[in-house]
């Protein structure tokens, strides 16, 4: 087939379809590239930089960079994983991430990425910035302390829910998620069934009255590292 191309990632030859991103091709081949803002149902965004890989010795985000024939991609290197860990650490010190009592703990992608990358304590000083909680909506609340500004809610609302509930305001350290409302979250047309709620990787947007439903030890990332669903495809790909 003419639209099939081949490239190598970490020394493994991967067959991909022209037009795919590196991340899509690697996922299909069962090779996991760490990520935070990327989501399989959303358009590539490239903001968190966690999926940065070396493409022919140049850094590129795997979620936005298309594959090309013969390209050489490096992902699982000590240097790249240290950069990824440092990004996760910056997110941990900039927000207020109290894992011990967070409802998302055990199912949180930021936390699971910390586990996967071996973060024991961040190398940066904690900032303890002040952030608000909006619990005005009857079914949903948003805790800005836990927000990592991945824009999954912004994009999900627009791309999947056909709404425009969330948007960023402010710049730099003052950047935060705001709502399409004159008042607060209750003044928007957000619904508890929106994909924007489901796709939040952390405990920033949560459904009320659903916390701590799964006991410790049985939560998503208690015994299975983040990305192991993708990596389990590898055996299938080899057999196939």
């Amino acid at each position, binding site marked *: 087939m003419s639209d099939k191309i081949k490239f190598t990632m970490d020394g493994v030859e991967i067959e991909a379809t022209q037009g795919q991103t590196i991340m899509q091709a690697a996922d299909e081949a069962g090779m996991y590239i760490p990520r935070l803002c990327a989501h399989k149902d959303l358009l590539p965004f490239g903001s968190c930089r966690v999926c940065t890989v070396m493409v022919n010795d140049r850094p590129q985000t795997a979620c936005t960079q298309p594959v090309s024939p013969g390209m050489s991609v490096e992902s699982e290197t000590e240097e790249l994983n240290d950069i990824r860990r440092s990004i996760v650490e910056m997110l*941990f010190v900039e927000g*207020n991430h*109290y*894992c*011990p*009592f*967070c409802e998302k*703990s*055990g199912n949180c992608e930021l*936390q699971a990425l*910390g*586990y996967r990358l*071996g973060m*024991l*304590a*961040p190398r940066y*000083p*904690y900032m*303890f*910035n*002040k*952030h608000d909680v909006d619990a005005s909506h009857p079914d949903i609340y948003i805790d800005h302390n836990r927000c990592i500004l991945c824009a999954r809610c912004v994009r999900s609302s627009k791309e999947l829910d056909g709404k425009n509930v969330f948007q960023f305001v402010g710049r730099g350290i003052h950047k935060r998620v705001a709502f399409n409302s004159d008042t607060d979250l209750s003044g928007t047309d957000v619904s508890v069934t929106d994909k924007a709620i489901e796709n939040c990787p952390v405990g920033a947007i949560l459904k009320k009255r659903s916390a701590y439903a799964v006991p*410790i030890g049985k939560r998503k990332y*208690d*015994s299975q*590292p983040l990305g192991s669903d993708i990596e389990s495809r590898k055996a299938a790909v080899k057999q196939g």
Partner: protein
Amino acid sequence: MAKPKIATASLAGCFGCHMSLLDIDDRILKLVELVDFDKSPVDDIKKFTGRCAVGLIEGGCCNEENVHNLQYFRENCDILISVGECAIMGGIPAMRNNIPLKECLDEAYLNGPTVYNPSGKIPGDKELPLILDRVYPCHEVVKMDYHLPGCPPPADLLWQALVALLENKPMDLPYEVIKYD
């Protein structure tokens, strides 16, 4: 050869991490064969009796006594380990960190709905350690050599990390034991 010595402290913590250490069950008999306990709430020794191989610190620093105690441990321990989320990031006590100290004290001693305080004063006895402007993680006060996360860190993590250190072997910790909650 004399057994290496271990010291432990609970700073701004809840003693849950110490409970988790006791949760190693009958391995505590092996631990007593491996080490002697020096300054620790476990044996109630108040002052270091000699140099310690390992110091385990639970809790962050919320007052000046915590800081002095942590510095005392740093001076007397070869290896100092942050044990648990409070030592690593301040934990629950650090929830006051983005509220001005005066507001916290006013709420606790003057304005809180259940406060009974006829004196109308915030306690200021010089015997009380001065409270810090915010709660500090241990590694922002002194150099910490290792961090064992968890709330509390599982007994298996504490046990495996301690044994690896004492036997001078690399720590090969399974995925399940490193958790932040």
